[in-house]
């Protein structure tokens, strides 16, 4: 019997890393509950038997495959609700992706369950699951219990590590279902459009990241100059990528990249959770922001309350001079 169901996102024949982390966590939790973990995948022909079976090595005993529209929440809700109506599943777990929030919340409404989100840890207590999530800009942690079942758990991005358990293969089962009427009223016109140049930032030791506080697209020049002086790359927040100031490929956080450089220098970034989840593993975090209440100062190692337009050029010059001095 399966006890925990996991929604696994994929794109172009590859599973999403946060989803795989959720499968691993579900395997551990299901063992604690004396049950099994199973996965639900929704999509087209790239969901081959082999690909689906491979989820077994992450801890899924069974994979329910629905050939349907991918990248949309409501068809996935239909699929998961269908599986839940047939086989009993006590909890449904989602990695920290955007679709997970939509599917998880909609599913809870559909099946009459409770939902928790931004969950960073799940506990097995008295044969049930208890979700742990940071609240109030991470200044406190709440433990949330479910009243009855099923319970829906939406994790925070990168909450669960991906651990491959070896060569286990999952049983793959195709699920037939009729989409609900409202699920057929959205249509993917274009998926995964990459906007702006492709920039590789994952391997940089130093990243200078810019946010809305830069004021405009030209403000990124200040970041580029400092990054050059430090021998690093330039990254960006979602707000400025959405505004078209910088390429999507350099975006850190919820729907962007996760990085952990030796130095992360955040300029004009407030430090919302959606950004934090993508960079909190950095070894040293330096933040420059004019707002002393900016959340980023709660998790930076060095915080400068001041005007980045004054500080960044002088910092760049000082580092360039210093290096010139040392080399001379």
């Amino acid at each position: 019997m399966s006890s925990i169901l996991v929604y696994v996102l994929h794109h172009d024949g590859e599973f999403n890393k946060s989803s795989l982390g959720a499968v691993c966590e579900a395997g551990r939790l299901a063992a604690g509950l004396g049950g099994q973990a199973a996965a639900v995948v929704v999509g087209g022909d790239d969901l081959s038997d082999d690909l689906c079976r491979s989820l077994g090595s992450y801890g899924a005993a069974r994979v329910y495959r629905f050939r349907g529209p991918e990248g949309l929440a409501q068809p996935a809700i239909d699929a998961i609700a269908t599986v839940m109506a047939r086989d009993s599943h006590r909890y449904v777990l989602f990695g920290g992706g955007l679709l997970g929030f939509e599917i998880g919340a909609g599913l809870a409404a559909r099946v009459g369950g409770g939902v928790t989100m931004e969950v960073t840890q799940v506990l097995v207590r008295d044969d049930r699951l208890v979700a742990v999530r940071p609240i109030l800009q991470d200044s406190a942690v709440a433990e949330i219990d479910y009243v009855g079942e099923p319970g829906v758990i939406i994790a925070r991005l990168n909450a669960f590590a991906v651990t491959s358990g070896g060569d286990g293969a999952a049983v793959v089962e195709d699920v037939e279902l009729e989409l609900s009427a409202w699920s057929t009223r959205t249509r993917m016109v274009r998926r995964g459009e990459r906007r702006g140049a492709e920039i590789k930032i994952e391997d940089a030791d130093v990243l200078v990241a810019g946010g809305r506080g830069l004021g405009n697209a030209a403000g990124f020049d200040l970041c580029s100059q400092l990054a050059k002086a430090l021998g690093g790359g330039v990254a960006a927040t979602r707000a400025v990528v959405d505004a078209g100031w910088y390429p999507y490929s350099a975006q850190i956080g919820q729907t962007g990249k996760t990085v952990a450089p030796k130095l992360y220098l955040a300029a004009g970034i407030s430090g919302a959770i959606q950004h934090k989840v993508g960079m909190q593993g950095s070894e040293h975090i330096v933040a420059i922001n004019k707002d002393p209440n900016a959340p980023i100062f709660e998790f930076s190692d060095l915080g400068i309350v001041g005007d980045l337009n004054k500080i960044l050029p002088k910092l760049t010059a000082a580092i360039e001079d210093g290096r010139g001095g040392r080399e001379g």
Partner: protein
Amino acid sequence: MLVKDVPDAAAQKRIDPQTHRLDRSGETNLNPFDTHAIEAAMQMREGGALDVDEIVAITMGPESAVRTLQKAVSLGADRSIHLTDAGLVGSDVCATGYALAQVLKQERPGLVLLGQQSDDGECYTVGAVVAEHLQMPSLTQVIKITPVDGRLHCERQAEYGYDTVEVELPAVISVGDAINEPRYPSLKAIMGAKRKQLDTRSIADAAIDPGRVGAAGSRTVVVAVKPPLAKEPGEIIEDDDSDATVARIVAWLEQRKLIP
């Protein structure tokens, strides 16, 4: 349009130790993300690509939420509805979404807009709950809406880049702050907001099942609130002399061998 009264961004937020709920007694304001939803509605009306009869702001919350509704009206809503009832206190996101959906059923909207998140708790989720109860298509975190032949082409950033999704109306759409730059209300609009129609509805008025809302009707319960794993607070420099500040930053970086 769904709007939310949230604790002011600058206010110190605290959790009531007895109820484990956010203390909402302090200074509150209209959720900043919701101002973008209002602006999006205004631009659709002004652009003429969609026929907009009226823009109605709806909120659920205590007495203080009236001011937030007035702000929503000053930003462009034609009238507002305040869902308020002692039986709603303590509702979790599913209960809140159900209650709001019951009010929406009475209004039969062609489009429900809301901000994608609020900084006082749940994000991205209430729109999906509302849509499910209304059996409408739903999309969150939208940063561009283009009406095309009575449907909406919505753009948003997802895990693999930007998605464009066509949504048939009626629908529930939550928007991000990149969608527009909200206008400032005119003094006249602020003064006039108090005179616009504001309906107050109770659980009974909105045909809400009292067993499905409030703390007792919620399917989640906060059992403990604890301090987070302690992280050493970082060093803070208040910049009043940028040369001295830069010297301190350089020294800090050099000490940690972060300058190549």
